[in-house]
């Protein structure tokens, strides 16, 4: 199964890259942006046919490696 996960920075963590992207968008004329936060997206193929088990496995990966829970949140967005 293919499991997709996104990792985002927590609310209070400074995101300088997001800030620069925001400023660049502003300079390009996209003036309606109020904030940009940059994150990471993973597609993980696991040798597992049970969607629930596959999801749990990737959740465990997020907790142990893919995300640093001091500054980041993770979310499994799709299992197919």
């Amino acid at each position, binding site marked *: 199964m293919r499991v997709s996960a996104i990792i985002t920075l927590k609310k*209070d*963590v*400074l995101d*300088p*890259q997001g800030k*620069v992207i925001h400023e660049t968008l502003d300079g390009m004329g996209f003036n309606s942006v109020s904030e940009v936060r940059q994150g990471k997206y993973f597609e993980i193929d696991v040798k597992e046919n049970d969607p629930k088990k596959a999801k749990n496995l990737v959740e465990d990966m997020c907790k142990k*490696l*893919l995300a*640093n829970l*001091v*500054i980041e949140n993770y979310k499994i967005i799709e299992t197919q």
Partner: protein
Amino acid sequence: MKSSVITFPGSNCDRDMDIALTKFGFKNKMVWHNDQELPKSDLIVLPGGFSYGDYLRCGSMASKSKIMHSVINFAKTGGLIMGICNGFQILVEAGLVPGVLLRNKYLQFICKNVHVKVNNKENTFFKNLDKKVLEFHIAHNEGNYFCTNDQLKKIEDNNQIAIYYCDQNGNTNDQINPNGSIKNIAGIFNKEKNVLGMMPHPERMIDQSLSGEDGSIFFKNLLNNIK
């Protein structure tokens, strides 16, 4: 006194550290990240560099190396561990010191000499050091120390801040903060003070003609404290 420096794929300050430790009297061994056991050591050093190309998050892959099980056990039994630069990033990813190191505030790789003020001398790393402000070198892209407010309170209550970025007179303020670190933090201890992580490189300041000798002062003092 015996020391071990661990080399990860992408470490590039491991040999500098070896030279520095050897120069001041440590019998140093180099240890490969894929080894399982540490040689008998009084000090373990995780050196600077770009382990695993800084993929995912700096230090995240290296913190899961085989040797890290032994390093974590060594820390639990009170063994002295020092992580410099990428070594500091590996320590935070391994959970051996609190907090994380984010991208520098102004998104630039910083390579320059800085001054640091020693905050806590009640530990093996800085005890008896007769200089309060040291000049070290920094070279990093992710040195912006961050932790939650709750963590910061615990760190301060437990006197875990090791060194601050400061000017040459020891004043700490936003203007001399090179990377945006909370409270100008340049280095931090674990709760028990046997693990030290810091961004500055003392091993780059051990030659009068090249750099200045504040690193020499640090290593000589460290050796005396361990003896």
